[in-house]
C-alpha cells in the first residue's frame, strides 16, 4: 500500500471515528445532550484524534527508521573498507537504490518478470544494458555486490511496506475502537481533546527552539569536519584567502573578516547619521501631515528586496563611484568596491535605524521636553541635551542591530563588493566578505567533502556567532541602561 493510499485510509477512518463517536454519545443519552459531559462534537473530535494521530505518528517514525535499518542490514554485502568512509557509503547506497528502482521499473513495464528481477545475475549479461532498455540510465556497470544488495533491498522494502501498512492500520482501527468504547455520558471528552490541542500548540511553539538547534548542530558538525581537514589556527589567523581546487588551499578568515567589517563600517557611516536625523525630524519637528506621508515612504525602502539594491549597486552606484571618484583620483578601476557595497547597505539600513530610533525617541516622556523648554532651551538644545541622552541606550541597541544586519547582508555584497580577498585600506578597491565566500564556496562544483566546500560552514558559524553576539550585546545594553519612566 503506498503512503498516499495509507493516508487516505487513515483520513477515512478518522472521519468515521468522528461520526461514530458523536452518534454513540448522542444515542447513549437518547438525544438529550444536557446529560452529556461535553458537547457532542467533542466526542466526535476525540474519535477523530484517536483514529488519526497515533497512526500518523507511527507512519512517520516508520518512514524515518526503515531506510536506516535497511542500510545497516545491507552493509553485510560490502567489504568493511567500502563503507567506512561516509561519503563513499552514501554514494554506494544511492547506487543500490537506483538499481533497485530500475528493477522495479523493469518489472512495472513488463520487461522482466518479478521472478527474473529477483534472480538476475551479472554473470548472465549486462544488467546495465537491460535496465537501459527500459529507460533507466545507470552511470556504470552494476557490480555483483550492488546487484545482490539491490535485490535484497527490494525484498526488504516489500516486507517494510507490508509491515508499515499493517501497523498503521491496526493503530488506526484500535484507536477508533477504543474511542467508541470510551464514549459515554460521563466521559470527559472536552478535557481530553483540549489536552491534545494544547500539546499541539506547545509542539508548534518549540519549532523556534528546534530551528536554533538545527542551525547550531548542522554548522557545528560540518565545521568540526572542516577542522579535522584544515587546522583551526590557520583558519582563524592566516592572512591569506586563496582556495585552490587541487588542494593546498590557504583558507584564512582574516581578509574576509576585514572586508566584512570595513564594508559594515562604511554602511554605518551612511545609515546612522541619515537615519538618526530623519528620525529626529519626524519625531520632533514634522507636522502630522508630513509625518504621515514621509514615514511610510521611508519604510518603502525596507520593503524592497535586497537583490534590487544589489542590482542598483552593480549597475548604478558602482560605475558612478568608479567614473567620478575612483578614476579621477587614481584610487582604482573597479566598479565593485567596498565603497559601493557600503553605501548601498547604508541606504538599506536607513529605514531600520530611523523607525527604531523614532519609536525610542517617542518613548521619552513629554514632561522631560517640557521641563527643558520651560528652562529656556531651544528645541534642538532640548533634543541634544535631554531627549537623545535619555534615548541613548535604545539608539545604541538599534545601531548594533543595524551593524549585525550589515555584517550578515549577502546579496548587496555578492553583487557590489567583488570577489577578491585582500587586506587593504583603499575603500575603492574590490574586497570580499564572509557572506560572499559562503555563497561562492557552496555554489561551486567542488566535491562536498573537500575543505574548500566545508570551509563555508566554518564561515557560517563565525558569522552566526558574530551577529548573535552583536544582538545579545544590543539587548543587554537596552536592558541594562534603559531609564524607567513613570
Amino acid at each position, binding site marked *: 500500500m503506498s503512503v498516499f493510499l495509507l493516508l487516505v485510509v487513515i483520513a477515512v477512518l478518522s472521519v468515521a471515528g468522528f461520526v461514530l463517536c458523536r452518534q454513540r454519545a448522542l444515542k447513549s443519552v437518547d438525544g438529550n445532550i444536557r446529560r452529556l459531559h461535553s458537547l457532542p462534537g467533542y466526542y466526535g473530535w476525540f474519535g477523530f484524534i484517536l483514529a488519526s494521530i497515533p497512526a500518523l505518528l507511527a507512519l512517520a517514525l516508520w518512514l524515518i527508521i526503515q531506510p536506516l535499518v535497511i542500510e545497516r542490514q545491507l552493509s553485510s554485502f560490502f567489504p568493511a573498507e567500502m563503507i567506512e568512509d561516509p561519503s563513499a557509503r552514501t554514494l554506494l547506497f544511492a547506487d543500490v537504490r537506483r538499481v533497485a528502482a530500475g528493477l522495479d521499473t523493469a518489472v512495472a513495464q513488463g520487461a522482466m518478470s518479478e521472478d527474473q528481477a529477483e534472480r538476475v545475475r551479472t554473470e548472465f549479461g549486462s544488467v546495465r544494458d537491460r535496465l537501459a532498455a527500459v529507460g533507466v540510465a545507470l552511470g556504470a556497470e552494476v557490480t555483483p555486490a550492488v546487484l545482490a544488495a539491490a535485490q535484497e533491498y527490494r525484498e526488504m522494502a516489500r516486507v517494510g511496506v507490508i509491515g508499515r501498512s499493517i501497523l498503521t492500520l491496526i493503530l488506526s482501527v484500535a484507536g477508533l475502537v477504543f474511542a467508541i468504547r470510551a464514549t459515554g455520558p460521563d466521559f470527559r471528552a*472536552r478535557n481530553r481533546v483540549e489536552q491534545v*490541542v*494544547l500539546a*499541539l*500548540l506547545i509542539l*508548534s*511553539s518549540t519549532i*523556534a*527552539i528546534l*530551528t*536554533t538547534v538545527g*542551525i547550531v548542530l*548542522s*554548522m557545528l*558538525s560540518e565545521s568540526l569536519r572542516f577542522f579535522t581537514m584544515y587546522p583551526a589556527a590557520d583558519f582563524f589567523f592566516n592572512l591569506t584567502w586563496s582556495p585552490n581546487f587541487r588542494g593546498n588551499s590557504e583558507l584564512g578568515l582574516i581578509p574576509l573578516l576585514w572586508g566584512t567589517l570595513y564594508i559594515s563600517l562604511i554602511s554605518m557611516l551612511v545609515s546612522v547619521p541619515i*537615519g*538618526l*536625523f*530623519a528620525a*529626529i*525630524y*519626524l519625531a520632533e519637528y514634522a507636522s502630522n501631515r508630513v509625518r504621515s506621508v514621509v514615514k511610510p515612504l*521611508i519604510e518603502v525602502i525596507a*520593503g*524592497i*528586496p*535586497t*537583490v*534590487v*539594491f544589489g*542590482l*542598483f549597486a552593480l*549597475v*548604478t552606484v558602482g560605475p558612478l563611484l568608479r567614473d567620478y571618484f575612483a578614476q579621477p583620483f587614481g584610487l582604482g578601476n573597479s566598479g565593485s568596491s567596498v565603497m559601493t557595497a557600503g553605501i548601498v547597505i547604508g*541606504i538599506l539600513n*536607513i529605514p531600520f535605524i*530611523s523607525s527604531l530610533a523614532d519609536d525610542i525617541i517617542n518613548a521619552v516622556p513629554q514632561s522631560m521636553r517640557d521641563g527643558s523648554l520651560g528652562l529656556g532651551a*531651544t*528645541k*534642538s*538644545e532640548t533634543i541634544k541635551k535631554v531627549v537623545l541622552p535619555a534615548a541613548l541606550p535604545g539608539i545604541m541597541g538599534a545601531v548594533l*542591530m543595524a551593524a*549585525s*544586519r550589515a555584517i*550578515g*547582508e*549577502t*546579496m548587496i555584497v*555578492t*553583487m557590489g563588493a567583488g570577489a577578491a580577498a585582500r587586506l587593504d585600506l583603499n575603500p575603492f578597491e574590490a574586497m570580499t566578505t564572509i*557572506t560572499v565566500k559562503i*555563497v561562492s564556496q*557552496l*555554489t561551486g562544483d567542488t566535491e562536498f567533502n573537500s575543505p574548500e566546500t566545508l570551509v*563555508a*560552514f566554518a564561515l*557560517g558559524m563565525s*558569522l*552566526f556567532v558574530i*551577529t548573535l553576539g552583536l544582538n545579545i550585546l544590543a539587548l543587554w545594553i537596552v536592558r541594562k541602561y534603559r531609564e524607567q519612566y513613570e
Partner: protein
Amino acid sequence: MTDISAAGAMPATQPKNSLFVQDDLTRRRNAAEARFKWYGIVAIVLSLSVLAIMLFTIFRDGTSAFRQASVAFPITLEADILDPNGARDPADLAKVTTIGYGNLIGQQFANFLTAEGITVEGISDKDISGMISRDAPGRLRDMVLADPSLIGQTIDFNAYATGRIDGYMKGRVTLETAELDSNVSLEQLQLADQLIARNILTSGFNSGFLTNPDASDQRPESAGLGVAIIGSLYMMMLVLIFTLPVGVAASIYLEEFAPKNRLTDLIEVNISNLAAVPSIVFGILGLAIFINFAGLPQSSSLVGALVISLMTLPTIIIATRAAIRAVPPSIRDAALGVGASKMQTVFHHVLPLAMPGILTGTILGLASALGETAPLLLIGMVAFVTNYPAGPFDGGVMDPATALPVQVYSWASRSDPAFIERSSGAIIVLLAFLVIMNVAAILLRRRFERRW
C-alpha cells in the same frame, strides 16, 4: 543690594539686549536651531531621493524588457529537408535536428530578402541568418513535430530578432558600439534599418518575457520568467501552508497559555534571536538538513519553501502575538464568565477577532519572504532551469525550479547587457507582486480594523 545696582547699570552698557534686537548668543542659538532642523530635512530628502533614483533607474532599464523585436517572414517548410523519407513518421521527423531547421530558416530568410529586393553592400549569408534568434530553429521544430501536416506548406513565421538587433531598436546598441562588438556587424544594422522601414522587423509587447523559461547566455531575447514565476508561486503557497498554522498555534500558546517558566523564556529568546539571524545562515541550514541529511531534491521549491518558512516564522509569530494581544481582556472575561473553557474562549472569540491582524501580518511576512534571495542560492535554486515544473499535484514542488529574485541575480551576473535589461524587467515584475501584496494587506487592515 549690589545686585540691584549692577542691574540698574546694565541697560546703559548693553543697549543691544532688548526684546527687539537679538544678541550674539541668541542669534547663534537660533542659527544652530535652524541648522539642526535642516539636517533632518536633508536626511529625509536624501533618503527619499535615493529611493526615487533607484526606482527610476530600474524602470528606465527594465521597461524595455517588455518589448521585443521580431522578424516576420514567410517560410516554406521544404519536405525534402524536413522529411527526406516522405513518410511523415514522427521518429523520422525527430531525426532532423535544430541545425537542419536553422539552415532552412537562414536560407529562406535570405531568399525572402532577395525576393523583396532588400540588400546591403558586403553582407554575408552568415550575417543575414545571424539576425534571427538561435531560439527560432527550436521553436519551428517543435511546431513541425506537433503538427507534421505543416510540412510542404508555406507559413508566416514570426521569429525573435537577436539581442543585439533588439538592442539596436531600443537604442542600447548604436553604430559606434557595434564597431567594437564582435557579435554584431554594421551591415546587419543597416539591414535592420531597411527591414524596419519595410515593417518586417517590428517591436511589440513581449509576452514571452513572462512565460518563457530561462535561456542560455547566447540568446537573451528568448529568456523569460516563466519558471521563476511558477517557482515563486509554489514557494509562497507552501510557505503559507507551513507557517500560518504553526505560527498561529505558537502565538496562541505563548500569549494565552504559556506559564512563566524556563521553557517559555527559552522559546521567547529563540524567536527574537531567529528574527535577527542573517538569512544566509538559514540557507546553510537548508543545505545541511533538508538536502544533505533528509535527502530532499536540490533546487526544488519544496526545500526553498521549508527554508523560507523557518525564516518567516518569527516574523509571523511576532505579528500574530501583537494581533492577539490587541483583543481586549473583557472579551475573554465575558466568554469565561458564561462558562466557556479557556480553549473555547481562545478559539471561538479571541482568534476570530484577531484574524484580520493575523492575516495582515502574514501577508506582509510573505511579501518579505518573496524577495528573499541569499538562502535560495545555497540550496541550488540558482541553477539553470529550462523545464517547467510539473503541476502542484503531480509533485511539481519536487521539481527543480527557480524564483523571481534568484532570476534577477542570475541574469545580473551574466555579461551580455541585454540580460541587465531583463534583470531590471524581472525586478519590475517582482515589485508588482510586492505592491499587490502590500496593497492587499493595507486594504484588509482598513476594512477590518477595529478600535476597541
